[in-house]
């Protein structure tokens, strides 16, 4: 994924327009560089809050989210005891789990290296698009 600068006013304006057009109430984005929160008020005016991480270089938690709605599988084979203990160090390409839709499995990769600290979804639970699955501590 390419890095998007969420502190760029043009990006915020674009996202706000997109949310308003889609009738979406709000949006929250967490990235290692900071957080962005947009709340579209009923009057159609958006409130925007953005804060950069106070101390770049510190340890910050990042969420790995479901890339698709489906059943969350921790391991590749159902019934296997491959579930690794937490916390554990991972690299960006490591597969942390899977989203299963029918017989098809979509691997969920970490996307960044760091330490997996939390499992946030229940194994075999139905999860929605964007549902948090894992928390990773990224050493930036």
């Amino acid at each position: 994924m390419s890095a998007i600068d969420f502190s760029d006013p043009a990006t915020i304006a674009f996202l706000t327009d997109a949310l308003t057009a889609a009738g979406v109430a709000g949006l929250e984005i967490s990235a290692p560089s900071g957080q962005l929160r947009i709340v579209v008020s009923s009057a159609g005016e958006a409130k925007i809050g953005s804060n950069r991480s106070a101390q770049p270089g510190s340890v910050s938690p990042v969420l790995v989210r479901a890339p698709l709605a489906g059943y969350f599988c921790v391991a590749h084979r159902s019934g296997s005891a491959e579930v690794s203990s937490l916390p554990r160090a991972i690299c960006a390409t490591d597969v942390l789990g899977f989203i299963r839709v029918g017989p098809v499995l979509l691997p969920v990769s970490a996307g960044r290296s760091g330490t997996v600290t939390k499992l946030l979804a229940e194994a075999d639970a139905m999860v929605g698009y964007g549902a948090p699955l894992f928390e990773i501590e990224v050493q930036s």
Partner: protein
Amino acid sequence: MIEIVETGPFNTVQDLGRPGYRDIGVSASGAMDPLAVKIGNILVGNAEGAAVLEIQTFPFRLIFKRRSAFVVSGTDGNPLLDGIELLPWYAYNAEVGQVLELKQPPKLARAYVAIGGGVDVPCIMGSRSTSLRGNFGGNAGRPLEKGDRITVGEEAGILPIPASGLGVVEPAVALRAFFPRSAEGSLLIRALPAGEHRLFAGDGEAFWGQTWRISSRSDRTGYRLSGDPVVPMETVEMRSHGVVPGVIQVPPGGEPIVQMSDANTAGGYPKIAGVIECDLWRLGQARIGTRLQFVRSSYAEARAIEQAVASYIEDVRRTSGLIKRALKAMA
């Protein structure tokens, strides 16, 4: 384009086979595990009958000369891409110059490499399968050799594979209810009594009742089984007749032969039974030394299994297409 960097003997290009020419002495050929071929092709975005590589001797290595989507299916071994372990039954993207390596799988016999666009060798009598018996088809009618450069078809119109891959719950797991194993772990293969079944005493109980072992004299043509010989109650002189994969013959020695993908087109031994088509891929994945038992089946059961397999394949096709399109739209 791909280039074979390392290969054992008898690895070939195969597809779903060349049926319809037995009358002129041409074996059907085709993959020993056609289900793995179909799923591999569907995941990668090909037509389900596109040609693939059938790997039955290891280690095997190839280098991608073009960016390609690929799947290694059928096997229980983890393929390696540039030394990084991947999962079998998953589609991935390979960059130019990356090396795919297959090591000896833990339990199963054969691995299939499906590549986006399909292995593009000449189509002979409706198939790209290698006929080792006839020395035609596939890659110049012979097994793959180190240094072979093989053309891969165009990927035009193929949906992109997600960066982290896309896979399936493999058939043996997804269709577990339809493919049982015995309590002792021997393979249960369903079969129907065939033409000369009545020649064997006690309704063929010696055949159905024992555990057979796949002998070392087994290959793509047929599996010779070892066990207590079964002999017919009377010796019959039969004219040679047509034979298809799955037919179980009993030669005079009494140890059965199961005809496989490169089956003879005709034979004269009495036929005791025929393996149902939906269990042939499991036999195709059974290694020499595997213990197996035949289970008497019925047309109705065979049909029910066939329908379950067909709906699994259709589900994989529909769902994988849907997911690829959704992820492409969100990208």
